[in-house]
């Protein structure tokens, strides 16, 4: 006799689903197929993320070939679609020999791809990108993607980390060029930020020149706070390489670098190189940081400069 209170048997389908559940399978996997948890009271070893992430593998031959193929196909196509960059000033690199630091203003995530597809050979083929350790190397997936596809190496932006600096200097001395953003992060509003002395420090330690670069027009592609790119025309302007002279110190060199990028920005904005040089000599070049006023007025000034290339959007409603 059957028990009327007995619960119905689990359906055939449900039963199979339960058995096939991936999470259930994963949960059942144990050491040595998965890592063991650190026992209570024991200090865990430093994680292989953030500034500690090891990127040597991304500079081995196979990774370099993968990166080169990816950048020259998908990377280039994507950048051509979204930014269609105009590249200027390459003639200024004619006498550049050996590795260099390419120091650019930073408005958007698109900057890195724009630069990596604009920097001429041979520097492009042996370039790494100084990327924020806390952002790009926060977990192992983003760290691996960044290291493999853009050749990123972690750089601490909130503190001085001898390990990351030492690694960057060793790479530069070993013939690798580096893309770096002396502003330390993307522009919050389209205007630039004051340069930090990282590029100067690296140039001095590694004894390599710094190429000032100005990128215009990428702010609207993937600005801070946005996750989906928009199309906007970009202009990349390479400046004359700067050598760390004997009389320089980090601060003075950083000022020189910022002035060089500002002069390039002026040149791009006005389209008149000679007038830009005249203003540079008169120390009258407009700064990257914009007017020191309220947010809306800064934004307003930006649109007046023609830097807001958001397309044909109307800025005032119809009345």
């Amino acid at each position, binding site marked *: 006799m059957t028990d009327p209170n007995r619960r119905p048997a689990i359906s055939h389908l449900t039963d199979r689903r339960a058995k096939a559940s991936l999470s259930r399978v994963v949960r059942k996997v144990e050491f040595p197929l998965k890592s063991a948890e650190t026992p209570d009271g024991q200090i865990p070893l430093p994680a292989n993320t953030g500034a500690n992430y090891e990127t040597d593998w991304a500079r081995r031959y196979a990774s370099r070939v993968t990166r080169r193929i990816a950048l020259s196909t998908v990377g280039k196509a994507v950048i051509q679609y979204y930014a269609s960059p105009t590249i*200027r*000033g390459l*003639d200024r690199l*004619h*006498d550049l020999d050996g590795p260099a630091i390419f120091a650019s203003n930073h408005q958007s995530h698109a900057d890195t791809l724009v630069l990596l597809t604009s920097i001429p050979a041979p520097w492009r083929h042996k370039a790494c990108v100084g990327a924020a350790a806390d952002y790009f190397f926060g977990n192992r997936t983003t760290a691996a993607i960044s290291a493999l596809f853009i050749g990123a190496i972690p750089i601490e932006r909130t503190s001085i980390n001898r390990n990351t600096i030492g690694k960057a200097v060793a790479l530069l001395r070993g013939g690798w060029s580096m893309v770096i953003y002396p502003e330390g992060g993307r522009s919050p509003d389209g205007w630039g930020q004051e340069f930090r002395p990282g590029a100067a420090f690296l140039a001095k330690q590694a004894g390599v020149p710094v190429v000032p670069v100005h990128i215009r027009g990428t702010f609207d592609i993937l600005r801070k706070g946005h996750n989906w790119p928009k199309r906007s025309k970009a202009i990349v302007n390479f400046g*004359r390489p700067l050598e760390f002279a004997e009389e320089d110190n980090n601060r003075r060199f950083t000022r020189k670098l910022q002035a060089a990028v500002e002069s390039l920005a002026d*040149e791009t904005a006005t*389209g*008149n*190189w*000679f*007038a830009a*040089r*005249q203003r*540079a*000599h*008169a120390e009258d070049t407009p700064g990257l940081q914009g007017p020191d006023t309220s947010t809306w007025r800064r934004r307003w000034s930006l649109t007046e400069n023609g830097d807001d290339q958001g397309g044909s959007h109307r800025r005032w409603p119809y009345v």
Partner: protein
Amino acid sequence: MTARRGLVLDVDRTTPPIVFHHGEGFRFEKLPTGSRVVYPNEPIEPIEDVDSAIRHALANPLGDSPPLEALLTPGMKLTIAFDDISLPLPQMQAPDIRGRIIEQVLDVAAACGVDDVHLIAALALHRRMTEAELRHAVGDRVYDAFAPTGQLYNFDAEDPEGLTHMGETDHGEEVVISKRAVESDLIVYVNINLVSMDGGHKSVATGLSGYAALRHHHNVQTMRRSKSFMDQEKSELHTKNWRQGRLIRDAGVKIFQIETTLNNDTFPSPWDFLQKREWEMTGKDRVMLLGTKKVLDKIPRRSARSIFQGIRSPFGLTSIQAGEVEAVHEVTTANVYKQHLVRVEGQTDILSMGLPYLGPYNVNSIMNPILVACLGLGYFFNLYKGKPLVREGGVVIMSHPTPWEFHPVHHPSYIDFFEEVLADSTDPEKIEQKYEKRYAEDEWYRHLYRTSYAYHGVHPFYMWYWCSHALEHVGQVIVVGGDQRAVKRMGFRSATTMRDALEMATDVVGRDPTLTHIHNPPVLMADVV
């Protein structure tokens, strides 16, 4: 490694066939035993830090000139003139040295607060440069800063408002130059001295001048007295230019001359086999040479032309000097000679030359028969110091297809010159007297020169005059592999092969002549002793 000097090779039975340039192609010619082949010097090691060299030259001028910075003051009028598309040959790989110099000059001008700046392509009677050519010469930055406002332009030698008559030399030569240049507080002239004829007082006195002044030295008599016009000490052309230049200087026109010399690293990879000696060509070079020849022989001339015209030379800067015109030019000439002079002992009965696809007046254009004659008998023949490589009454053999073909935009007056003038006479003196004035003052040619991209109406005459020293000196000119009708029109003889040409030459120079071949380009200048 230091560059090896050029050499004179005595041909024996083991000597390989020599590579002759032949327009947009090559020929392999087995020269008779006992002939000589003159090879150019290898490219001199270029200056590594070009920007520093430019900076140094501007700050440490030669002669009695102050540094450039001291010559620039706010509110002044500055004119920067530069050599046109005829230099260098082929065009150099970007960035062009003119642009690099001009940028530094402008940077100093910007620092000194100079606003009124004009940049002029010193064309004289050459064709106007296109936007792309100007951009290549001065660089995009300079072009974009000055061209839109009309401050960068081609010189117009037929603009009645744009020329100033400065007077006459004590030999009666008129001096006419650009009005803007005369009114400027300073002219900075940026030269590329590819051969020893370039630069000096010729830069301003010819480059920024017009027909009224040029006719005093671009004539048959002057060219025949210039032996050669590449050798300043024996060049009447040089003497007359100097007289005009000194008049300009004495009239108070301030010139800051910048002259540059390039090495003869003429052909980039994969064409670099063209500047190797035959026995030093690797297997790869020979494969390239043969493959290229086969391809060039098969494809239409138009395609071959566009391939060759696309070549950009990797010339390296070997020297730059700035300051007072004559002091600068003396150093420049010594540096040009250092690269080009090859010592050759004694003259020859027959001089042979393989003419390449390019001369000064067919950049991005067609080398028509008149330009072929000018390149061979004007330039190559005159690339000597001392005495001509070929003896008086000797024979010149040139290898070139010499097509009956003209660029209708660049060379309109050449077409009429070839059809009308040369059909009547090939005697330079007769041509000069009978036709020059009409062509020089023709309104249609004048219009095309000013508004299109045409060489001036009188330009083909000058090309023919350029040949006049050679035509007077040699007994016969033979063209190998040329269009028979075109060759005949110029009064030369046509041969199908080099062997035929040598056979024909014996009629003039006897049964047992000596033969010297100049392996040019890369450019060489024979120092005949």
